[in-house]
């Protein structure tokens, strides 16, 4: 129990704050603010109109209440909707990047140079919503791959963005998606041309830096016919006392025969051990699968005070495949309501859901999923498994799997278990000379193995470390 105390009370390791001069708009939201954001980013007229329309839709909507989470509602008029580091000058090489920023990355253990040289990962660094540095762009450009910030994409590839933006997550989708559509500051855009297999893992680091600013990322990934891309997204946020709001939208489009693999490691500031502060994470992620395509979501969620996130797949085309692998860890007073939606519309569509929830401290961890088999989805197949692990007697684990079947040829399976780390398991390890702390590490990593193994190599290591930091020593 001592170890439990020690570890579950361990403070957030990434809690530091980089003083960068930020260009901020006054708090609050109205049409003028939106015009201001749009103007600041030199956006074309259609984009400004698109945002304003989204704002009008947002005003008619209500915050969703159905999730199994309790929190103090953010005051949307007290948030500053745009913050960008003041551009000093155009940057040509890594040396010119703000040294403070480089330090931040070093503290996170992700050195750009190292990643660049050793792993071949192109990183589109997003600090407070504006891309500061994009690497490997030229190399990717040779293949015709477009990988750039959303604001650049709107300027340079307006027709592509206009064609796909908001087609998977429309502005009317939900409260937070509408808000994001109105005020999104930046994000990533990725387009893989026909038949191209992207040679590197595309990666973005999101950071929420400036105090009191909300982060509204917009990501759009389009994989054209027969292409393949693996996209990584990782997040750490420094420690701030007031709650920060994050409402991102991610849209994936896999055209005929394409494959998108989208991996996330999220370890935003979860609040201190008494439940003060922490990030509110309200994310809408959805992918659209055309014929013979595949979308795979993998996520490791260890951070955020509140998580509200359901990466989904719309299996529209025949023979398309959707996958969802998730590990969600909650500790202290964290609350997570997360899961997936698999909407089978086409024939012979298949989906797999593996969800592992680990709750410790006084946290609440919910899985909420939907598997819907439409009337025309002949021979659709789904397998779902959601396992929960409880550590300590004050946490909770909940499952809300919805299954709706409207076709007699569908095969849908769902199973769920709840368990704890057994004293006999710990005893077995102890007996063999493995200290309790390491034993728990071992067991938790074993529990989450099916998901971790889906992550690209670079992330898998970080994810394992994260699990260890978040939970070691928690014997029920």
């Amino acid at each position, binding site marked *: 129990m001592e170890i439990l105390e020690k570890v579950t009370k361990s403070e957030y390791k990434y809690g530091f704050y980089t003083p960068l001069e930020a260009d901020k708009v006054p708090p609050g939201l109205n049409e003028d603010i939106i015009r201001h954001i749009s103007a600041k980013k030199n956006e074309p007229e259609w984009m400004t109109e698109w945002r304003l329309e989204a704002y009008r839709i947002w005003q008619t909507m209500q915050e969703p209440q159905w999730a199994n989470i309790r929190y103090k509602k953010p005051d949307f008029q007290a948030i500053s909707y745009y913050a960008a580091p003041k551009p000093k000058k155009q940057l040509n090489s890594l040396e010119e990047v703000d040294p403070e920023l480089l330090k931040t990355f070093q503290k996170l253990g992700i050195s750009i140079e190292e990643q660049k040289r050793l792993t071949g990962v192109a990183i589109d660094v997003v600090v407070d919503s504006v891309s500061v540095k994009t690497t490997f762009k030229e190399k990717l450009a040779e293949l015709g791959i477009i990988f750039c910030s959303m604001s650049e994409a709107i300027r340079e590839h307006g027709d592509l963005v206009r064609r796909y933006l908001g087609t998977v997550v429309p502005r009317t989708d939900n409260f937070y998606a509408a808000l994001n559509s109105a005020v999104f500051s930046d994000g990533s855009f990725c387009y893989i041309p026909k038949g191209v297999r992207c040679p590197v893992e595309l990666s973005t680091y999101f950071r929420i830096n400036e105090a009191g600013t909300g982060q509204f990322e917009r990501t759009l990934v389009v994989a054209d016919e027969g292409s393949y891309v693996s996209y990584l997204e990782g997040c750490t946020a420094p420690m701030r006392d007031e709650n920060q709001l994050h409402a991102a939208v991610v849209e994936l489009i896999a055209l005929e025969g394409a494959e998108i693999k989208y991996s996330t490691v999220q370890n935003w500031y979860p609040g201190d051990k008494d439940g003060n502060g922490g990030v509110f994470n309200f994310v809408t992620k959805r992918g659209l699968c055309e014929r013979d395509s595949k979308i795979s979501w993998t996520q490791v969620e260890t951070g955020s005070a509140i998580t509200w996130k359901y990466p989904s797949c719309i299996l529209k085309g025949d023979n398309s495949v959707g996958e969802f692998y998730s590990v969600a860890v909650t500790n202290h007073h964290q609350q997570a309501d997360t899961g997936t939606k698999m909407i089978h519309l086409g024939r012979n569509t298949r989906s797999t859901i593996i969800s592992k929830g680990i709750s410790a401290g006084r946290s609440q961890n919910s899985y909420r999923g939907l598997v819907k088999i439409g009337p025309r989805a002949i021979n659709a197949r789904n397998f779902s498994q959601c396992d929960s692990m409880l550590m300590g007697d004050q946490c909770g684990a909940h499952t809300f799997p919805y299954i709706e079947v409207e076709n*007699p040829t569908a095969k849908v399976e769902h199973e769920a278990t709840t368990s704890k780390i057994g004293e006999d398991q710990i005893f077995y390890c102890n007996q063999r000379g493995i200290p309790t702390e390491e034993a728990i590490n071992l067991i938790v990593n074993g529990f989450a193995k099916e998901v971790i193994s889906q992550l690209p190599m670079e992330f898998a290591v970080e994810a394992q470390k994260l699990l260890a930091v978040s939970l070691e020593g928690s014997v029920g």
Partner: protein
Amino acid sequence: MEAFKETLLSSFIVFENQLNGQKKSELHKLRQKAFEAFEKYGFPTRKDEDWKYTNLKPIIKHDYKIFHPKEQKLQLDEARKYFLSETDTYRIVFVDGYYASWLSLTTHHQYDICTFSALINRYPEIADEYVGKLINHGDSFTALNTAFAREGAYIFVPDNKIVDKPIEILHFTTPHALPAFQQPRSLLVLGKNSRATVIERHISLSANPVFTNSATEVFLHTGAILDHYKIQTDHYEASLIDNTVYQLQGYSVLNLTTASLGGKFVRNNPIVKLIESMAEAHLWGLTKIDSSELADHHTSIEHIAPHCQSNELYKGIFGGRSTGIFNGKVYVAPHAQKTNAFQQNNNIVLSDKATVNTKPQLEIFANDVKCSHGCTVGQMDENAMFYLRQRGIAADKARALLLLAFAGEIVDKIQLPELRQYVKRIFNQKNHIDFDFDL
């Protein structure tokens, strides 16, 4: 649906005026409170999470008649064919919501097997102790039932007594010119170490729509055992909402078997509260529906005390344009350690137009527990079908055999041989097969 609510609201005043001398009783205060709750909430809509898949509109659109004249229309000869046995059971029979003494076999010897009205008149102290103690006014149908609570079954088994014969509770609705609305209210109390078997049925003899809103409270004291069978085989114009709340004290056992084999609309809300250690609840359910019938099982198991066990197995077969819904909630309270909860829901969809919506729901607030659930939606095994066909068994018979095998896991849980045979017979009739041998 507003029209029906208005009818109910005005009927309550009429109902109150009929209650001579009862107006000051505790029960009536409860009725008034429940009525206020119903007035406030009204009927649930599909926006309520608990009614997401269940559309009430087609049921409550009719202008049901709330009060029925007390007539002795049903004769023994006609009612007889619905009895499990003529002499070997206790029987509490109601016709149009009134107690039918000429059809019943009740007793006050050793234990009380009689009616809810007898409870109110003869044992007001028991009524005050138990009635309304489990039922939640937050649900509009139970509130509505409480508001009009007047008649139903009452069973009281004292400590250390075993009821020697099964108890049948039968609710008949005779033919009426208008759609009829029934609200039976029952109370079952089993004392320490007692045991009883109860079979509950609702039978509509009317060609017009009949809507039954039944509510039952069941108390199992330490060590009591209850075998409860709900056989729902009503015809296409009959709808049923059944709310039953069980409270289980230490070492008590509940075996609940629900066979939903017919009815336009059947909604079962069994709520089981395990309030003391070592209590055990087993819930078995079998559904076989066709055409545009709907069967909805909303079970709720509340593990409030540690060291309790619950076990649920619900199987369904859906043909035609039928809709099947299963929502299995298991709640494990903080400190309810060593809970063992198991839940399984298997469904077979036979036709293109049938729909199955299933949602197992676990809410767990304790760490040293074993909880698991599983659910499947699928079709008949083609290999098994091929095997049977190869051996010269006709397609429809082979199909019926396989379905019977699928249902067997539930049917075989029925302890009474006559009842088991009866359910099998009805099940085979639903599959349009008459096996000429006894299975």
